[in-house]
């Protein structure tokens, strides 16, 4: 039984804002499961089921949705985007739910964010010099982290974004 007395009737707006271009009109989702039929993550345990997430949003089941980690197993193949017959953007729905979860609970923030802040990448692109040289490549790709002065400008820009400002303790500015 679902208790709707606790429902957040404004949840759609809190998660998606007015960005109908990007998300589509999720009220048109009729639970057909086309978005699931080609979805690898629908085979996960627990499965990622976009149609179920859409129901949770429409019913305003805020607490339930906040605890639901399945959007994080998406492979971003965008197969569901291609297939939805109702003009909903299922992949964007999942992505927007992830952003909303991050804004509600900082433990959702991807651990890769501080890495990108620090060196501009999710991998240590500047630390494979020996291997790269052995193949005839430059020691490092032309990254922000090896271009003089570039990382400072990169961070200056990022510092003005909500996710960095609101969680500034995670994003340190060491001396260059």
């Amino acid at each position: 039984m679902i208790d709707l007395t606790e429902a957040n009737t404004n949840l759609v707006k809190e998660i998606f804002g007015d960005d109908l271009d990007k998300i589509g009109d999720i009220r048109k989702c009729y639970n057909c499961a086309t978005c699931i039929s080609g979805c690898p993550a629908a085979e996960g345990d627990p499965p990622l089921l976009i149609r179920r997430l859409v129901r949770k949003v429409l019913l305003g089941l805020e607490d339930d949705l906040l605890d639901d980690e399945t959007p994080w197993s998406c492979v971003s193949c965008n197969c569901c985007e291609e297939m939805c017959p109702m003009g909903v953007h299922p992949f964007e729905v999942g992505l927007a739910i992830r952003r909303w979860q991050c804004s509600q609970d900082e433990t959702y923030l991807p651990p890769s964010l501080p890495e990108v802040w620090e060196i501009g990448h999710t991998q240590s692109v500047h630390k494979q010099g020996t291997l790269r040289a052995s193949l005839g490549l430059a020691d490092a790709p032309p990254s922000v982290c090896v271009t003089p002065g570039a990382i400072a400008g990169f961070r200056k820009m990022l510092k003005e974004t909500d996710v960095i400002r609101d969680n500034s303790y995670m994003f340190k500015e060491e001396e260059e």
Partner: protein
Amino acid sequence: MKYGLFLGCNMPTIRPDAERGIRLTLEKLGVDLVEVQGYACCPGYGTFPASDEVASLAVSGRNLAIAEAAGVDIAVQCGSCYSVMRHANHSFHNEEKLKKTNALLQLDDKQYSGHVKVKHLIDLLYNEIGTEKISNSIEHNLEGIKAVVQYPCHTLWPEDVMGFDDARNPHKLGDLGRALGADVPSYSREFQCCGGAGGFAARNKPQAVQFAKRKFDAMVDEVQPDVVVVSCITCLMWMNNVQMEFGEDWSPIPVLDYNQLLALCMGFDPKEVISVADTPKVPVDLRFKLAEKITKAAVA
């Protein structure tokens, strides 16, 4: 023909042999590769796109602004980079989003018009360079070699934002394989994605391995390929490594990026273009055996 080569994070770090293959082959085909100097993460879907849309568009916009200032469009192999930056460009059709992004870019002395094209290597190879020129560029052909191709999911869907091939029935990577003389048969799970990207494999390893195994089982039962040809760094890493999880009875099939295969056909040194294993378990010698077979064949 001039392009900014966008390398992303994984390829230059984990599989630089693929990077080497891409650089050597494109240059030989007359593409002038310009460095996207100062680039950062695209940013990957699991980073800013999943936490802050404004930041995500700023980081993508910054990469595109660098290419624009250098006067080039972008060429990219990584499916995720391609998808993220194509989606970003699509978002920039919205004036408000472009304006907001430029306000942030200004802090880094950059600006972006929204007009840089992001091209996947399959698109570049097939539609710009063409199969005929590729066929004429090789010293060894793949006659007698059976290849299956892995279409990178991120380059197919959604077609209105990503498309350069038929999204429901793609053929261009297969045709590129045929241009090298390979037999490229279809099989039932050809268009199933590899399942290696994002959180699925990280959070649901056993299910992700099963998902990939079904695909590999289908290719072995139906066509018994000598090589799996990909054109995405995630497909390359995952389809290599996941085979090590299939158990003792599994005979691994070498997996190569298309440009690595092309490099072998062009006669480049296998040590430079196919030699890196990102996990010690992957049998690289299988790749070298394949390379030996290829380099023995002259162009017919």
